[in-house]
């Protein structure tokens, strides 16, 4: 048997829902299977389109002594060559530590130093090679622990002056860009009360998002001064805002900038915020009137966009023999790279939640954002939780075994429930964590022996919990507009991005539900900041929840207007009206049935020939008004930085060939509490996709750098992402639905969560199969085979 099994059975809907909760076909599906979907690179900009190429630093850390652009500028076909001297601007989402072009100092290999704009890409590339840059090399540091040493080279002497959000605590005179402490309870007493205290370190390397579509930007500043940017992005409004901040010296503000984002070929966090797009924006101002295009090569995609940050975690957890966790201490040192304008918030998020979904009376979390001379770290699906969960969940299993308790039972006892204290002192939201644990354990027949399919192989099972909250500023908000058309169809505008998760479809379902039209009569288009209303960004798995609320509000407003018009024209009580099958109906008059198409634009004719109503429109907004980052900086207590947590559990059955180290995932089950699955098929898509992405991080992916900070595998030849051969034999998605009180129809986000549990559960299963525990990712076939071989034949391997 193979494939997805057990189309998750779901609790009966609380309400009688017609469209929400159904596995509707994606509204963007047709565009995608026919090739009609347009991505930025597919757009035509006419013969005056110019192409840019970037001059990059070959050094991880160096002072720029001089830049000579004369030879490049003289090449026929070159239009402009620009350097940091032309655009001495800094930018950044949470901390403005990034420069458009490196000016005095380069801080990672591949950093942009200058750009050539030419009539065709080949000339641009050739000219870029002719730009002469003289460098004076500096000592570089690549390891976060080394970077913490007092004698380590300092990357940002100006750290103390960088503007940043109020919840960051940079430490000038060091490489610490931010330190988040979350401390609660009596740690010493907690450890003293424990029967077993387990202490160990875990290492997680850097990873790449590997969206199939590389970053690409086209920008044009027209002769009237207006700047339009087309970008492959998760964040049109945030981009506009960051551009406006950075380009303020050029006299540009929000109203002068327009960001248009068509379909995007995958994001996973890599296209959040602003990275290379700033280059498109500034280059356009250098060649007014011309559109300029910059498309990252696959190599650049690897070394000059955000990367998932590396982590060294030291973890100490105590438990009593009865299975109660008494105390937890977690130090996290992040290899955040050369610039942390976004990555520092990953560090922050981890520092708030690196307990995992457990009830623990005494905790101390310290999450440290350390500058290194590697490419900038940043958001990646999981936003820090994938990284720290490798240690936390590995540790929980080990601790359970150390006190002689079944690891699933141990988790059941300590799993957080509604009303428990969160690490920062607020209360846990409703959650179906225990149901998720039971169902995931059952799906992999936890506790039962499994025989291998091949002689000589071993089978092991692994289990892990996960949780994650959106990491957002407290005022991250969403808005939506909606209008009816003459045929009763609806256009909805929002500024969240369809990254593939199915967001447009789900928004259509929400509108369809409220306004009683079929989802295929609802068009939801990709954003244009001139036309679509505000959305913070499509990140943090918050979009279904946050924008879903805004869309629902817009639909409710439109419904309200519909009822008002019908009341005005027909005199029926508004409270007696309802919508069904594209018609307005009335409780008190069963024969009344007014099709929406008859009046939602044209209005309703009254007996005297006059009309009531008019084109029906609606608008909605959403802001989590209870969220706050005001807290005691020393302990993190007192605020409400996270709106809610989505939780779940996952289990795996792994078959290992101890001779070769090769591992096969026979079954992976993942139960996630979605609050309410607005579209179960799309949610299951998040499970199959996210699980595989997570499995790849533990089984073979990782970014490898040489001693000079150069990425050795900036391509799919050597950074292996899974192919169709590398999938689990069976994936079991399990949907738990304990409603989120403030979610649209009870929904909360799940997009990132599906990859978090993969690494620790594989580590568990490997240990169960071959008796070796790995504390460092990835756990490749090579590492497993060699560890087994060393154990079996210590003599042969003594020298290696």
């Amino acid at each position: 048997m193979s494939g997805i099994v057990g189309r998750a059975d779901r609790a009966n809907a609380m309400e009688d829902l017609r469209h929400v909760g159904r596995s509707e076909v994606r509204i963007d599906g047709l565009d995608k299977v026919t090739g009609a979907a347009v991505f930025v690179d597919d757009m035509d900009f006419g013969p005056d389109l110019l192409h840019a190429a970037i001059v990059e630093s070959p050094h991880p850390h160096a002072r720029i002594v001089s830049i000579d652009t004369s030879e490049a500028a003289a090449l026929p076909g070159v239009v402009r060559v620009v350097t940091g001297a032309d655009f001495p601007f800094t930018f950044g989402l949470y901390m403005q530590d990034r420069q458009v072009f490196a000016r005095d100092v380069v801080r990672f290999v591949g950093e942009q130093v200058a750009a050539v704009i030419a009539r065709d890409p080949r000339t641009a590339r050739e000219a870029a090679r002719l730009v002469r840059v003289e460098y004076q090399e500096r000592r570089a540091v690549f390891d976060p622990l080394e970077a913490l040493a007092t004698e380590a080279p300092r990357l940002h002497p100006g750290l103390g002056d960088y503007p940043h959000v109020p919840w960051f605590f940079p430490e000038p005179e060091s490489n610490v860009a931010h330190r988040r402490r979350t401390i609660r309870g009596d740690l010493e007493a907690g450890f003293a009360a424990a029967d077993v205290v387990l202490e160990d370190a875990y290492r997680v390397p850097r990873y790449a998002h590997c969206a199939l579509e590389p970053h690409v930007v086209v920008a044009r500043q027209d002769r009237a001064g207006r700047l339009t940017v087309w970008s492959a992005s998760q964040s049109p409004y945030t981009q506009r805002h960051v551009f406006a901040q950075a380009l303020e010296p050029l006299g540009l503000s929000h109203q002068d900038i327009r960001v248009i984002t068509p379909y995007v070929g995958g994001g996973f966090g890599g296209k959040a915020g602003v990275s290379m797009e700033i280059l498109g924006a500034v280059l356009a101002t250098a060649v007014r009137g011309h559109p300029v295009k910059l498309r990252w090569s696959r190599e650049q995609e690897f070394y000059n966009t955000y990367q998932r940050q590396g982590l060294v975690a030291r973890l100490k957890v105590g438990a009593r023999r009865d299975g109660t966790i008494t105390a937890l201490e977690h130090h996290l040192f992040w290899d955040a790279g050369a610039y942390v304008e976004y990555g520092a918030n990953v560090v922050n998020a981890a520092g708030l939640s690196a307990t995992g979904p457990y009830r623990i009376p005494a905790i101390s979390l310290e999450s440290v954002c350390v500058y290194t001379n590697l490419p900038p770290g940043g958001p990646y699906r999981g936003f820090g939780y994938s990284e720290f969960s490798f240690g936390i969940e590995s540790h929980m299993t080990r601790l359970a075994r150390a006190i002689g308790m079944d690891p699933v039972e141990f988790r059941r006892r300590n799993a957080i429930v509604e009303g428990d204290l969160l690490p920062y002192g607020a209360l846990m939201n409703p959650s179906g964590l225990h149901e998720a644990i039971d169902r995931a354990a059952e799906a992999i027949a936890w506790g039962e022996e499994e025989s291998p399919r091949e002689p000589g192989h071993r089978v092991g099972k692994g289990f892990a919990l996960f949780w994650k909250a959106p990491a957002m500023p407290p005022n991250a908000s969403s808005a939506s507009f909606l209008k009816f058309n003459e045929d009763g169809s609806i256009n909805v505008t929002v500024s969240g991005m369809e990254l593939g998760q199915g967001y447009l479809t789900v928004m259509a379902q929400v509108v369809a539900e409220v306004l009683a039209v079929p989802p295929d009569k609802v068009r939801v288009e990709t954003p244009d900041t001139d036309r679509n209303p505000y959305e913070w960004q499509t990140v943090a798995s918050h979009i279904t929840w946050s924008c879903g609320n805004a869309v629902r509000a817009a639909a409710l407003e439109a419904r309200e207007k519909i009822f008002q018009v019908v009341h005005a024209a027909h005199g029926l009580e508004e409270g007696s009206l309802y919508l069904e099958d594209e018609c307005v109906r009335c409780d008190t008059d069963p024969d009344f049935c007014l099709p929406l198409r008859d009046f939602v634009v044209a209005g309703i004719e009254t007996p005297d020939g006059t009309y009531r109503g008019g084109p029906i429109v609606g608008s909605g907004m959403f802001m989590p008004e209870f969220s706050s980052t005001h807290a005691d900086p020393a302990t993190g207590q007192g605020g409400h930085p996270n709106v809610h947590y989505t939780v779940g559990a996952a289990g795996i059955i792994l078959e290992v060939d101890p001779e070769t180290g090769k591992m096969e995932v026979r079954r992976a089950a993942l139960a996630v509490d979605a609050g309410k699955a607005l579209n179960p098929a799309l949610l299951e898509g998040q499970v199959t996709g996210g699980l595989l992405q997570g499995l790849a991080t533990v089984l073979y992916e990782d970014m490898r750098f040489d001693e000079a900070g150069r990425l050795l595998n900036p391509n799919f030849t050597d950074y292996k992402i899974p192919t169709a051969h590398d999938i689990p034999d069976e994936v079991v998605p399990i949907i738990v639905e304990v409603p989120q009180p403030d979610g649209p129809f009870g929904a909360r986000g799940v997009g990132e969560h599906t990859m978090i549990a993969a690494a620790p559960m594989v580590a568990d299963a490997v240990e169960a199969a071959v008796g070796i525990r790995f504390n460092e990712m990835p756990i490749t076939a090579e590492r497993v085979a060699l560890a087994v071989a060393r154990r079996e034949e210590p003599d042969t391997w003594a020298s290696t």
Partner: protein
Amino acid sequence: MGHRVTLRVNGEQWDLDLDPAETLLEALRGRVGVKSPKVGCERGDCGSCTVLLNGQTVRSCLVLAVEADGAEITTLEGIGCEGLAPVQRALLEHNSFQCGFCAPGIVLSAVELLAAHPHPTRHQVQEALAGNLCRCTGYEPIIQAILAAGEEP
């Protein structure tokens, strides 16, 4: 150094004057204006640029446009011109794609497979897709759709 080249793309003839260093992918996107073959890696690793060359899938980033002189080229634009092909319909109904960037290559790989093996096994489907990377879906919904298309009489 222009080369006169005749490409037959989705049944239409294109007479082009090309630099021999232009890849088929570049010529299709830049000269002919078919945009479904995508630029994913330009080194043969990802399959986003897959097109059918005389009925066989190739990576158009690793083919010179001049090499395709006289050849029949089919891109996703040329599949199911009259309504969806059965495999496209199956992929649509299974919600197989997420971001859809891999879709043009995957549909063509599926078309090549189903032409040779109208009722493929799961392993044959995996093998046919193995050169088309997809970062979003975990492949399973794509495999299921192709198997379903292959079950139709």
